[in-house]
């Protein structure tokens, strides 16, 4: 009667996630509750619409009721910088009272001791802080805000002093690519976990200028070699395993995303609006019947059998149809950065097999 015992060889959580993907049972709602931000990150993908009003606290709370009814357990409050909203805690507590486990994506800039104490009372499941460098020079250059490194670092210390779990999320760029170990060491010294992500995306309006900040090829070749296994958690790049789930990704399945205006998206990366949360009387019905969401799901199912099959290094592609659409106009098209990264990963995989085979003989 106690805990679930897996019968299919998967951990119970992996099994649940697979079920979420395969049956389109959304576990997470990610809501960008504002586009306001006190950082000016060079690679930010957000595109606020000038003059358009963001939803009020009351409208968001009403939307949260609909999302709770949809069955999501995690509520991610994101932005912009969510803590810039004066009513942030009202919104977060509304989510908490509706039974969500709250995750907060913040830059940590506004987390003084008072905010840290209020966050402790809220007891979020997780706080993720964007972290951009091991020193002020690179960090402040990426955020565009002098002094942000020191202030964010203090914010993290304030959260840790309250015993809160903090993940430091580091987008890898060519400005910080050689600092990852120092960032990891800094995170560990603060009692935090550091996560690194080499994916930089275009802006939501298709502007590809952030891509100029991508880590360079020389670095990426090192990143996916055993030398960086402590950062990537893999000795060698492994091919995709598409046996567990049929779709390319969880878009329109595991997560529902919303922007500050109430647009409902299948994913934070794929901005095809299925409607406005304020206009939707029955979110369950929309989630099931929306032509937009069903189209997105169908495409995500096709990709492993089409796009990835025709790509030479398709089995090493971490392919995002949302990025493909914004960048190439078609969610099925391979885009330059995924082509490069999958080629490197495939090559590193082959190198590893070749060394193994030589060692064996």
């Amino acid at each position, binding site marked *: 009667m106690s805990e*679930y015992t897996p019968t299919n060889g998967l951990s119970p959580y992996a099994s649940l996630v697979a079920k979420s993907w395969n*049956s389109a049972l959304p576990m997470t709602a990610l809501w960008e509750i504002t586009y306001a931000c006190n950082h000016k990150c060079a690679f930010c993908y957000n595109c606020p619409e000038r003059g358009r009003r963001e939803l009020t606290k009351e409208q968001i709370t009403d939307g949260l009721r609909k999302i709770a009814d949809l*069955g999501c357990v995690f509520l991610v409050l994101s932005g912009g910088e969510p803590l810039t909203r004066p009513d942030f805690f009202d919104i977060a507590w509304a989510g908490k009272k509706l039974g969500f486990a709250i995750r907060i994506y913040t830059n940590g800039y506004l987390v003084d001791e008072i905010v840290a104490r209020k966050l402790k009372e809220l*007891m*979020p499941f997780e706080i993720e802080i964007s972290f951009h460098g091991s020193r002020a020079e690179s960090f402040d250059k990426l955020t565009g805000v002098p002094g942000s490194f020191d202030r964010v670092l203090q914010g993290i210390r304030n959260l840790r002093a309250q015993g809160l779990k903090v993940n430091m999320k580091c987008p890898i760029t060519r400005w910080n690519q050689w600092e990852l170990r120092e960032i990891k060491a800094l995170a560990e010294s603060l009692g935090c976990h550091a996560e690194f992500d080499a994916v930089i995306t275009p802006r939501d309006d298709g502007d590809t200028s952030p891509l100029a900040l991508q880590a360079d090829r020389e670095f990426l070749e090192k990143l996916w070699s055993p030398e960086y296994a402590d950062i990537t958690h893999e000795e060698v790049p492994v091919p995709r395993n598409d046996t567990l789930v049929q779709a390319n990704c969880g878009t329109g399945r595991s997560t529902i995303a919303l922007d500050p205006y109430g647009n409902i998206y299948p994913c934070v990366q794929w901005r095809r609006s299925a409607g406005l949360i304020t206009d939707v009387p029955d979110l369950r019905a929309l989630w099931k019947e929306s032509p937009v969401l069903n189209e997105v799901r169908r495409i995500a199912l096709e990709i492993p059998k089409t796009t990835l099959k025709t790509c030479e290094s398709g089995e090493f592609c971490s392919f995002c149809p949302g990025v493909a659409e914004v960048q190439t106009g078609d969610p099925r098209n391979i885009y330059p950065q995924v082509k490069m990264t999958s080629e490197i990963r495939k090559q590193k995989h082959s190198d590893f097999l070749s060394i193994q085979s030589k060692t064996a003989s």
Partner: protein
Amino acid sequence: MALRETIPAKHPDAAARVYDNEAFIVLPHKGQYKILNGVGTRVWDLIDGRRSAGDIARLIADEYETTFETALSDVESFLGDLESHGMLAGKAE
């Protein structure tokens, strides 16, 4: 007081949803999550801060066609597991 008279309540920070008859329970205060099987999910569902362990066992015995004694023993053991994992607020009298 007998265990069967204790009234379990869910931890106020626990967030739970049921997916395909399995409760997924997130414990922010522990930084963990747990997944319950079908019967465990039903027991979790019945924990409302008003029913006693005996009340819950009676309902389980009826629904799963087992004896009250067997259900009570299982429910008490299960509640002990939930408590040890920090999923309960504590047992009120």
